[in-house]
């Protein structure tokens, strides 16, 4: 604390609302490009919101989910989103555990990504509910929260907890900068450490949603949670690298090349671990054979002439392999364009693998081994695009506020 005057509670009462107000002002202010970007996102979000309203009033018949494939694009994106949120921690670990000073400067990008990704996840869960009006039944105290039996209640806790932890960390750091004060480590470092453990937990618990179900052999594997983490640590850093390049171009947040090198080092390991675990699971499925392998068969080759997922699966595999090759290229950080392509490939590859490639084969064939295929409906695509657009809005606005506050042009005038 190098501030001369101690901050009293009364001062917070006036300065905190000021901070929030300035943040709102910053969030709504920017260049023509910023307005265009936000307008497009708002439009997509509204289209998605409108589609969701239709879904609520007409019923989920507007989706292409069925009693056989009872989860679809929403839960697929939810699962992926949790990974993205957890992936943000891959900036926090080098910054705080390995005291990487350069990473420290931009670690807030990872933390803000976590916030935006969790918002997306929560929206996807709400979009998937048949009765969103009964959401309050989930609230401990006034509803009936089936804790600790239901893994979904664990997920509700860890996701909201992770959101709150990251909101606290980012909010505290930004507020202290706003007050022209050096942040006090005891108010945020313990939370940063907690957020590292917590990041692991959100994706582990999300994997437990699926792998605890004995009736779904495709999911019922002890390797699922580690696989989730490995893929999260591909999609998260890949997304962050692209974000850092974009920020270099459009904002004054400048990540040093050292930061990108660190992230690439992480990617080189995680992308291989992810592929290895995937290969290990597929070996077990196909070498063992039998009806437990029928979902994997469906995924790769189709089953009884039904092949809807086959193109997705092979694209995902190809994308992941190409991404690995690109990440492993020597001195890749000197070729930003190629690196960005690699990141995009890794991101999309994991999106398919953790989304359509994981959720749908859990249901095909069904538990009675009937084969009902699933392709998302237009409403589902609209809602999904809308939620992603909203997530990008949150991320953009958060980065904007953070960038400006850290730049110092948004300090409290004393």
């Amino acid at each position, binding site marked *: 604390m190098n501030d001369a005057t101690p901050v009293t509670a009364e001062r917070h009462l006036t300065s905190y609302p000021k901070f929030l107000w300035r943040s709102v002002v910053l969030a709504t202010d920017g260049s023509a490009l910023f307005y265009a970007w936000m307008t497009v996102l708002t439009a997509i979000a509204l289209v998605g919101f409108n589609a969701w309203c239709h879904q609520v009033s007409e019923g989920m018949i507007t989706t*292409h989910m*069925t*009693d*056989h494939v009872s989860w679809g694009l929403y839960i697929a994106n939810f699962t992926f989103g949790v990974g993205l949120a957890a992936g943000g921690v891959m900036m926090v670990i080098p910054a705080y555990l390995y005291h990487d000073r350069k990473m420290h400067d931009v670690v807030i990008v990872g933390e803000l990504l976590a916030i935006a990704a969790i918002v997306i996840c929560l929206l996807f869960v709400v979009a998937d509910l048949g009765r969103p009006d009964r959401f309050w039944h989930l609230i401990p105290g006034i509803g009936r929260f089936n804790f600790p039996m239901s893994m979904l209640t664990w997920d509700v806790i860890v996701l909201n907890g992770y959101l709150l932890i990251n909101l606290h960390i980012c909010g505290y750091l930004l507020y202290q900068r706003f007050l022209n004060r050096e942040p006090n480590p005891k108010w945020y470092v313990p939370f940063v450490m907690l957020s590292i453990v917590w990041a692991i937990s959100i994706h582990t618990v999300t994997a437990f949603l699926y792998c605890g179900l004995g009736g779904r052999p495709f999911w019922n594997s002890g390797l699922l949670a580690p696989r989730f983490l490995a893929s999260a640590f591909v999609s998260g850093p890949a997304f962050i690298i692209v974000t850092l390049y974009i920020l270099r171009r459009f904002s004054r947040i400048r990540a040093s090349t050292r930061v990108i090198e660190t992230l690439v080092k992480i990617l080189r390991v995680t992308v291989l671990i992810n592929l290895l675990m995937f290969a290990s699971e597929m070996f077990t499925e196909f070498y063992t054979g039998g009806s437990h392998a029928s979902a994997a068969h469906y995924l790769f080759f189709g089953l009884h002439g039904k092949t809807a997922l086959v193109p997705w699966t092979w694209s995902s595999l190809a994308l992941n392999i190409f991404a690995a090759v690109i990440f492993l290229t020597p001195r890749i950080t000197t070729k930003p364009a190629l690196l960005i392509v690699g990141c995009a490939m890794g991101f999309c590859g994991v999106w398919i693998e953790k989304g359509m490639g994981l959720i749908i084969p859990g249901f095909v064939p069904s538990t009675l081994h*009937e084969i*009902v*295929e*699933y392709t998302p409906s237009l409403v589902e695509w609209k809602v999904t695009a809308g939620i992603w657009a909203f997530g990008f809005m949150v991320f953009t606005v958060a980065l904007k506020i953070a960038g400006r506050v850290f730049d110092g042009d948004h300090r409290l005038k004393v």
Partner: protein
Amino acid sequence: MASAVLTLGCSPDRIDLPVELNGNEGAPHPAVVVLSPPDRSGVVVESGGSDVAIPCGTCHATRDPNLATRSSEELDQFHSGLEYAHGDLSCLSCHDHDDPAELRLADGRSLPARRSIELCAQCHGPQYRDYSAGSHGGGSGYWDKRQGSLVRNHCLHCHDPHAPSFPAMQPTFKPKDRFLDAPSHESPDKDSAKKENHG
């Protein structure tokens, strides 16, 4: 040709059965009631637009049953066209030679037609055991004998004694789930084109 088939019409009367079924002491209703078997005490002939039942004795008072008859092709007059597929039995394995309206047990004793379950039980022991225990023959009404009776079928509701194998059926109600391939319209098997209903 005056077609003459044995009737399997279902009567709503209920009969007592010699089978020992679950006890039901003190309740105002029997634990189990078995629907009376279809009336088979004769042949039904269409005459002037209406069905006329002709008791067995009408002919057999004068006409002696043929002991040797083992196949339906050998039958004539009122019995012609009878579908017969019940093992290697002859008519008089079950029908009483002296009183064609009644039945005959394997040991030669006569058995009233309404007690036909005992006749079936001679050969179909496991089915009789299962039926008595409630695991064969189905039921409706009450599972809880304290509250009402379980209404049971008689052997003859499901099994034509001359061709006892359960008839083939055509499923009439199939799932119509979205995106589940619609039922394939396979042609029904020729040899399973038997009627669903006995009547």
